[in-house]
């Protein structure tokens, strides 16, 4: 379990954050596809916090409850709900028509079973839950 683990919200710390999260995920599942998918979600969420929140630090939690992994990313930046806008991603568009925006949020909202945002105690909380039934380590 990772409980409110604090990291400086800096790009150069991102590899360490992702390594910590990936090590935690692999305690619960050995499914490479899902380890990769959850690492991608973590990268997308953390990059947004690092690049846009203005927060100095980010706090990461990851716990395993009822066969599901529950991630919580907390920052002290300006209030921002990334789930408020649906990403404008057309997965059927051709090369010329296809836009470059919205892919990060599209990925994590597609991969995760449930996402929730709240602004509490002056902090942004982004919660992401993925059930891993059938993909768990013995």
């Amino acid at each position: 379990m990772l409980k409110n683990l604090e990291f400086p919200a800096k790009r150069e710390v991102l590899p360490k954050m992702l390594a910590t999260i990936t090590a935690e995920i692999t305690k619960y599942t050995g499914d490479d596809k899902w380890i990769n998918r959850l690492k991608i979600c973590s990268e997308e969420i953390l990059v947004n916090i690092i690049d846009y929140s203005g927060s100095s630090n980010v706090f990461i939690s990851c716990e395993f409850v009822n066969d599901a992994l529950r991630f919580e990313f907390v920052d002290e930046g300006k209030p921002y709900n990334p789930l408020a806008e649906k990403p404008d991603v057309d997965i059927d568009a051709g090369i010329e028509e296809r836009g470059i925006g919205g892919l990060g949020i599209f990925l994590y909202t597609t991969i995760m079973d449930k996402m929730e945002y709240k602004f509490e105690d002056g902090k942004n909380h982004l919660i992401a839950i993925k059930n891993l039934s059938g993909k768990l380590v013995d």
Partner: protein
Amino acid sequence: MKVTLERNDDIKIISLDGQLDVSTSDNTRDEIIALLDKKPVIVSMAKCTYVSSSGLRALLMIAKTAKSKGTKVIYAEPIEEVVDVLKMTGFIKMLHCVGSIAEAEREFSHAN
């Protein structure tokens, strides 16, 4: 991410070795785009272990540039986890992916 021009005769083979993530994607995109001319290109993906949204944006910009230059690009041997992300985002329909470099070479030789 290591970008290597492995072959440059009638076709170019560019190999990727590493992660296409937020810290590497912009450079990788620029390095590959700088190599694009009229010659057909095979991008060897076997050692590209990870693609996030910044990697997808790089691949899209490469595809747009290649299309505007009339360059044909085939992606050879992407690993399962990368194919998974390409499928999820519809990129698998935009990028031509095959299972091996030999298969990509055969496609280019048939096209001529």
